[in-house]
């Protein structure tokens, strides 16, 4: 028994010593030029990580440390880090929603690329989303807008022809005709999963085209307007009649899976899906996909959709110069060429550089390239809605409160879609909750 007590003491001591040694070893500071990069697990980012070995070869004093996280976790993680100035990351992958808001808070370091970088080659709409008070605070890695995907074989069979620039009314008629629920073919797939970046990205873009908007003069919420009602009625009714079951659970990935496995006739979503749907390794309908512009509603104009994933340097980074060297390398024309050489033209990051779209090899490899470029050029995030608006942003509102507001409204719209409430009830609840939040945030008095 006393042997047990002695064993305990020895074990405690040795584990404590080992623990301390291990802990101090693992937490030891690394070389000065090690950059920690926080990124998402998207195809383009995975390629960047693979090809970054080339960067390390040409920059032997800079080492790269990668932290790959799911989008929502990444957002929470980097926000905590940047807001507390912890300096855990030297480069962050953030969206064009965050860039101006964080730049205003002085959380990001300004980026000043050299002349060789050719900043003027970046598509103007994308560049403008990353600029705050005429200074660049991030460089775009890839960008996306919205377009319509459809199944050419189903259209042919039904004797239909998709116009290059359809209207929402036409989309509904086509969806009605090609829906064949007995064979699990659904005329239309749209995002239904609640979230400011999920269903509300599509809904906001659609509402703009119907002549609606989030806020009017003096930041007055306008969710109970006739345009919102018309848009949400279209959305709910189309998905109920022609959509897949359980549409409120479907986000981008779920719809991608449905379309890629042959269950959707029409899908309106991010242009990034083009490359995935045309890839026979990931899509069973790769040779049957057609594409068209994002549909138009009654208003026919208005901002559509612009999202870019960008590389930014937090102000708390201790290696801003090296970080800028990497960021400019990963978003350069030379990097695009490197991806083309190593992975093929279809794999190059889309939506950021004019030179990519001018390249005949890219045009050949990505038949949807012109649509994507036009969609981005027409996304018009700073453009005007049917009535004057006090905010910018295409499929989001560029204020810090929008994440909360968008998700809350997204939930009520999902409730209307699942039949828990009517469209009128959902919009009046959304109007009330948005008014409350805006009042709490002192936008409204």
């Amino acid at each position, binding site marked *: *028994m*006393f042997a*047990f*007590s002695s064993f*305990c003491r020895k074990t*405690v001591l040795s*584990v404590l010593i080992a*623990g*301390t040694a*291990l*802990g*101090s070893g*693992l*937490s030891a500071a690394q070389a000065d030029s090690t950059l*920690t990069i*926080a990124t*998402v*697990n*998207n*195809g383009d980012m*995975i390629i960047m*990580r693979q090809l970054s070995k080339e960067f390390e070869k040409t920059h032997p004093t800079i080492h790269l*440390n*990668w*932290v*790959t*996280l*799911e*989008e929502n*976790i990444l957002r*929470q*993680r980097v926000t*905590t880090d940047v807001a*507390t100035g*912890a300096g*855990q*990351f030297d480069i962050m992958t953030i969206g064009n929603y965050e860039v101006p808001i964080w730049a205003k808070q002085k959380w990001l370091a300004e980026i000043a690329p050299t002349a060789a970088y050719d900043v003027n080659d970046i598509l103007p709409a994308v560049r403008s989303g990353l600029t705050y008070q005429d200074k660049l605070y991030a460089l775009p890695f890839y960008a996306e807008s919205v377009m319509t995907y459809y199944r050419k074989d189903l259209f042919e069979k039904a004797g239909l022809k998709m116009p290059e620039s359809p209207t929402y009314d036409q989309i509904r008629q086509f969806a009605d005709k090609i829906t064949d629920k007995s064979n*699990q073919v659904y005329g239309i797939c749209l995002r239904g999963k609640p979230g400011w970046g999920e269903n509300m990205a599509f809904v906001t873009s659609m509402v703009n085209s119907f002549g609606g908007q989030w806020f009017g003069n003096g930041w007055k919420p306008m969710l109970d307007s006739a345009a919102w009602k018309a848009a949400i009625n279209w959305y709910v009714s189309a998905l109920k009649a022609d959509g897949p079951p359980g549409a409120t659970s479907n*986000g*981008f*990935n779920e719809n*991608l*899976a*449905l379309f*890629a*496995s042959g*269950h959707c006739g029409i899908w309106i979503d*991010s242009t*990034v*899906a083009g490359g*995935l749907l045309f890839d026979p*390794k*990931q*899509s*069973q309908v790769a040779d049957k996909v057609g594409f068209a512009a994002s549909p138009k509603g009654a208003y026919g104009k208005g901002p559509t959709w612009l999202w870019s994933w960008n590389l930014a340097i937090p102000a708390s980074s201790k290696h801003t110069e090296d970080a800028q060297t990497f960021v400019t390398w990963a978003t350069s024309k030379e990097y695009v060429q490197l991806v083309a050489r190593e992975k093929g033209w279809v794999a190059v990051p889309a939506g950021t550089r004019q030179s990519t779209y001018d390249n005949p090899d890219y045009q050949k490899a990505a038949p949807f390239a012109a649509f994507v470029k036009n969609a981005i050029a027409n996304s018009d995030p700073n453009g005007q809605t049917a009535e004057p608006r006090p905010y910018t942003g295409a499929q989001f509102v560029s204020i810090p409160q929008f994440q909360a507001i968008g998700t809350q409204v997204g939930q009520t719209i999902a409730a209307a879609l699942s039949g828990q409430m009517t469209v009128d009830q959902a919009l009046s609840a959304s109007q009330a909750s948005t008014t409350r939040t805006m009042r709490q945030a002192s936008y409204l008095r």
Partner: protein
Amino acid sequence: MAVKRSRGASIAIGSLGWIIALWIFFPLFWMFLTGFKSEVDAIATPPHLFFRPTLVSYAEVFERANYWHFALNTVLISVGATFVAILLSIPAAYAMAFLPGKRTKGTLLWMLSTRMLPPVGVLVPIYLIARDTHLLDTVVGLAIVDMLTNLPITVWMLYTFFREVPLPILEAGRMDGANRWQEITVVLLPLAVPGIASTALLSMILCWNEAFWSLNLTSSQAAPLTAFIASFSSPEGLFFGKLSAASTLAVAPILIFGWFSQKQLVRGLTFGAVK
């Protein structure tokens, strides 16, 4: 007293047990299966039960991340946090079980109530403390937080186990001249080994599966397997095959560990339940 059951009731209870066990096991089985599917097979509707198995997802997982680095961190964090938690819980539970004061019950309840707090509520203060003490992204930092998170549970469990130890045995030890240290280490602990083992096992499992603090307090150096899994989820693109492969790799060690120690775990959890 033995309870006599009819044959029909035994079959019904046995079948119910099997159904519940399969119900619980099915998601794990499906995850294991999906890890061997191609991405297109993984999303197929209706799902394919029979398919051509492939190791592509596993190959990609190993190519894209250093699994052993994450696994080692998980082991260090789980073992370290559990060890210190048990070390601190034994004297705390001893004091509460054998030397109860006026506020012992209140203290126990208060300790447990800290588990009811949503962790995100204290994220910012803990993050700031970790930042200022240079414990961000360190194994020690995360082990401390995991240990503190599990401490109420380990104290409670040990308290319950210690209460089952008859007081006269401890008193006999005292009569034989044992001091407090000897009373705990020589008399009490050997009697409570099954309880301590099951408490340690539960704490290990909780630390292994802990995701919130792992994702928020680590980035690259000290990231455990929960962060490894999170890195394979993607907002744009198909990932179920890779995610399933990564999840299988992450849960496999603790499942095997649990399988081998299930006898000890059940023995500990039912310790004192039947008199």
